[in-house]
């Protein structure tokens, strides 16, 4: 072994001391994408407390949380689908069908509620399986497949309800509107579901494979993962989550509208986007999505309490979504890197080949003056 031996003399990396932040991150298992939305949500609550303290009063928070929890659960289902590079436009149909089943089937009779809920889960999971099969095995694009499924579900909504909205049972209202140790039941259910889903995805083999398929279909296939099965599972599990959220919603609202689900499609996608999951598929976090749902709900509440008109409310929602998209989609680092590179090379801005003012393209003034004088005189 000589001093010239490259292998023996290769530089060895000394292990870096673990920073406190890295330890916390690895323990809590937050992906880097979660941090912006968590920071934004905390900032929003601070801003709300400063500018409109009424919007963060105890009663206001308690009133806002149940519907925020419902949005969180629905958006978590949407996250699973979007992580696989798809999108689920059947959220309105799934939610409306579940609501119709838990209101019409019991007919006010609390004894039939359990059967109604089971029926709703069977229906939504079956619909999710069918969508997933059409998308992953028959290779129809998700937009088309889920849009079609939505129409089918709406047909069932009309068929079962006969066009009449009705009320749910007292049992469901009491359960969904109730509180455990001062925390709304809906919130507890949302937290539990988020925890279970996140645990399955991040800590089980199946979950990691699910993420792998979403990140790179070809890479996962090369590694021997049966990709289509995981894509199918995404839609089925999403259907299950939509049903859970809708059952809670039925209890919270008491008498939901016939097509109550309509108002949840765009917010569910917005929560996924604000949570940092790319619409093209790949890494995502259901916990970040749930936090984003809370952000959206508090933002709406803040603007409402502030007294802004309906138009302003819509603009604020759109602005928040645009800002979220910009933060996650614009390659800030690459832009900053390019600017740095250009400054280092001595240019102040982009240059091209036609910028030399003394080149041969410049025409002499005399000819120009001559032509302009004679052009307009023939009427």
């Amino acid at each position: 072994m000589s001093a010239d031996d490259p292998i023996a003399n290769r530089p060895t990396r000394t292990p870096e001391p673990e920073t406190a932040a890295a330890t916390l991150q690895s323990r809590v298992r937050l992906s880097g994408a979660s941090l912006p939305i968590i920071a934004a949500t905390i900032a929003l609550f601070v801003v709300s407390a400063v500018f409109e303290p009424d919007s963060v009063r105890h009663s206001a928070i308690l009133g806002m949380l149940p519907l925020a929890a419902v949005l969180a659960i629905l958006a978590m289902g949407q996250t699973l689908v979007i992580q696989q590079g798809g999108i689920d436009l059947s959220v309105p149909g799934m939610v409306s069908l579940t609501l119709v089943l838990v209101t019409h089937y019991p007919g006010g009779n609390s004894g039939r509620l359990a059967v109604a809920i089971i029926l709703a889960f069977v229906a939504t999971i079956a619909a999710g399986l069918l969508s997933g099969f059409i998308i992953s095995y028959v290779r129809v694009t998700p937009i088309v497949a889920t849009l079609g499924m939505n129409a089918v579900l709406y047909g069932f909504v009309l068929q079962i309800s006969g066009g009449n909205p009705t009320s749910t049972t007292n049992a469901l209202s009491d359960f969904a509107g109730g509180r455990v140790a001062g925390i709304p039941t809906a919130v507890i259910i949302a937290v539990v579901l988020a925890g279970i889903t996140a645990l399955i995805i991040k800590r089980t083999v199946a979950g990691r494979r699910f993420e792998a398929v979403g990140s790179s279909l070809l890479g996962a296939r090369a590694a021997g993962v049966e990709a289509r099965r995981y894509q199918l599972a995404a839609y089925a599990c999403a259907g299950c989550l939509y049903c859970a959220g809708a059952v809670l919603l039925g209890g919270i609202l008491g008498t939901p509208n016939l097509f109550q689900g309509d108002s949840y499609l765009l917010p569910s996608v917005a929560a996924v986007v604000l949570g940092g999951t790319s619409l093209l598929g790949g890494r995502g976090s259901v916990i970040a999505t749930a936090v984003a749902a809370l952000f959206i709900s508090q933002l709406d509440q803040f603007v409402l309490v502030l007294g802004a008109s309906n138009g302003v409310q819509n603009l604020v929602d759109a602005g928040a979504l645009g800002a979220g998209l910009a933060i996650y989609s614009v390659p800030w680092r690459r832009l900053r890197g390019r600017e740095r590179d250009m400054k280092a090379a001595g240019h102040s801005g982009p240059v091209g080949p036609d910028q030399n003012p003394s080149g041969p393209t410049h025409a002499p003034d005399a000819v120009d003056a001559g032509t302009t004088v004679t052009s307009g005189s023939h009427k």
Partner: protein
Amino acid sequence: MGKAQRVLALGLAGVASVALAACGTAGSSGGTNAANVSSSHVSGAPSWCGKKKIVFGLADGFGDNNWRKITVGEARAEAALCPSITKFVYTDGQGNTQEAISQIHSDVANGVNALVVFPDAGKAVLPAITQAYKAGVVTVPYRVFPGGKAGVNYDAYISTNFAQAGQLWGDWLDKALKCKGNVINLGGPPANTQSLAEYQGLKKATAKCPGIHIIGQTPYYVTNWDPAQTQKVITAVLAKYPDINAITTDFGSALASSASAFTQAGRKIPAVATEDSNQLSCQRQKDVKSDPQFQLFTVDSQNWMVRTAVDYAVAKATGGKLPSSTVVPQKPFENSLTGKPHNVECDPSMPPDAILSSHLSHAAQLKALGQTGFKG
């Protein structure tokens, strides 16, 4: 196929389609077959039921909610009173303007003689209504103004004045609040004419009491008549205003669904003025002991308004006696303060979305809603 042949084929196709379109709109102009001077009517039947046999049609722009279903029930019940009506044709535009237009056309093509229309799409269905009128069909739009003029685009427009509803609310609030208090006004979608008119009436009536203030967003908080949005608005309003003495809204059921928002905020439901809803009335009966300030005033939901439209259309088509007025008044229904014309009416055996101000019997209403009963 040579060029000349192609041109000929296209020309023939063009002529054929123009001819088909013309067939759909041809016919005698302006409802002349309805101008039957002798207003004799079938004995034993109401005076609007003339002797000429007709086919009656009801074209609904949107049929899928309880109010519409009950209204259709009322229309059928009214039509059943007249033996001259040989057939009752019901079509539903399903909230789609194009669908509504084609339903009106198909009614005309299928030989409907008297057509009542609920023009949800407003002026967008005026051309279809006008075509039906010019084809000789007695055409009567009601409740939503489609534009145009009676005698030019249709036979008559049966209307109601929503500002009057707001005024009835305001007059009651002046008494219920003893001329002092804060009122929150909830409405439907943005720029909705019904909600706007109601606000105008409410403002006029409460102007008599300078101590009554309509607070929060005016003309109204947008709720889109959606119970979820209503709950969000109620939560925000309760957080912002510690003193709310009354709520006015044109959709009482959504407010009933938000009762939990009041409980969450530790507040009681204040005085409410709205259109009648079984659910809201039952909620009030439930809370009457624990919440004495929850006084309730409702105006009639006017499902029976379609009966006036049916009377007019059938009278004109069969030669019966026309109704004396095309304007249907807003009427109070329940008043928890005076009990006149009714005290708060709750029927737990009827579903929450039943409308008790309807002129249908409870059994007929259940049938119209397609339900067999409610176990409660």
